[in-house]
């Protein structure tokens, strides 16, 4: 038996703005007007204040590696070429992004990184090719 179904997920208010930002080569965060907390990926409401958010702003893109891993298996569990994944946070912003690390860079804690974008972008998390070391 197999279940055949495709799924379409709406990005919603805040993530649509985020994806539009990626298309333009920018990282967009949200800011709550009540508690002033910035968040990436952006949110359409503040869970602390239960406040709707209308303030979206570009951040520098200069982040740091919070933690990382190197996967030797593919989605189905079979052996695969090792790929390093990093969880990147940004100074003064809550949350963070999971993405690939440039294979020419060795991962380490607190490594300063920035996103590298593809030339052609469609409004997807994959518009970021990977994060690389920021000089």
């Amino acid at each position, binding site marked *: 038996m197999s*279940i055949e179904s495709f799924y379409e997920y709406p990005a919603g208010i805040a993530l649509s703005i985020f994806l539009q930002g990626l298309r333009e080569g920018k990282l967009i965060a949200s800011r709550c007007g009540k508690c002033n907390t910035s968040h990436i990926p952006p949110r359409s409401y503040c869970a602390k204040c239960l406040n709707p958010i209308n303030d979206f702003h570009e951040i520098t893109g200069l982040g740091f590696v919070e933690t990382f891993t190197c996967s030797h298996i593919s989605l189905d569990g079979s052996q695969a070429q090792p790929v390093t994944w990093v969880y990147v946070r940004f100074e003064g912003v809550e949350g963070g992004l999971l993405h690939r690390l440039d294979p020419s860079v060795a991962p380490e804690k607190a490594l300063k990184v920035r996103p590298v974008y593809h030339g052609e972008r469609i409004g997807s998390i994959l518009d970021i090719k990977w994060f690389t070391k920021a000089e």
Partner: protein
Amino acid sequence: MRRRVAIVGAGMTYFRSMQPLTPQELIFEAVRKCMDDCGLTLRDVEAVVAGSAPDAFDGYHHKGLLSSEAVDCLGRAFSRIYVGGGTGVGVAVAGWWHIASGVYDRVLLVAWEKMSHPYPHAQPLFRTIFDPVLEQPLGPNLIWIFALEMRRYMEMHRIGKELIAEVAVKNKGNALDHPYAQLGAKITVEDVLKSPVLVWPVNRLDISPTSDGAVALMLASGEEARKITDTPVWLDGVGACLDSQFWTNRDLGYPYYVYLAAQQAYRMAGITNPLKQIDVFEPYDPFTYKELHHLDALLGKPGLAPKLLAEGQLERDGDHPTSPSGGLLGVGNPIAAAGLMKVAELYWQLSGRAGRRQVPNAYVGVAQAWGDLMQVGQVVVCRV
């Protein structure tokens, strides 16, 4: 007014990969053993609380129904609890609500899993726990999230893989004495370190096996329990809490949501110093480091568990026996059933029925499970 709740019986199936049995047959076997254990019949049951992980494993929706015949549901209240990997202990927590509230006196708990249905492996189904817009396009497998967390935990407390591997050695060794265990074995730290790296720093032997199995427990109100058995094990504290769906908002080094769930259960059970007052620990150990990560939160002291492990105190004959059952690493990990197995182990340990696994002087125990995408804490405290 809140009523006291007791466990009066337990039963379980073998935990095995690819069991040639249907979910109904597994459930039937666990339930029958449980009823034999407490000397009741299904006629005595007033309500059933069932637990099983995602429907995707079975490719069959509303799969709570799979248990309805084996537990003879006609004329009884039935509910299915689902909090990811936390489901097994969550079932015990919800069963407690049923009785403590005064609504029911005799409640049957059953948790099961058939992880061998999806072909060729259950692994790709776990992808659906990630955010569909920002994370699923990256093609994540389940182990990623554990690897990111394990590395952060190792860094936070400056511990190496050699020490963490001791958890696999201990739990698989303990499981040799569990009659239903899937992966009891005498292994060494070197075996763990030399097993294939799947998602660094996670090696194959750091992970519990996928499995099929079922566990059933019978709960009763205090008054009923005394009629049913001379050796009730009291379910004196329960705690449950969730953190945000977004794992990116937490420090992965400490499961604060498990700490908060434990504190709820301890307050209810009058535990103020868990290290001193608790004799048996059954923290959730789907991965080696997770046992330490969770035990830290159960003790309320980040970094204490690895120290106790290094001193040999978590062994069955140590001062703080942890996963004397053999845990998920040794007994196996049929998700919801594995969590309820931990509660069953407290029942067996505290009532002196644990056979070769018996921990001496076991009067108070804590069991915990965890799940979803790193945000579910479910905790129960038992005592005799």
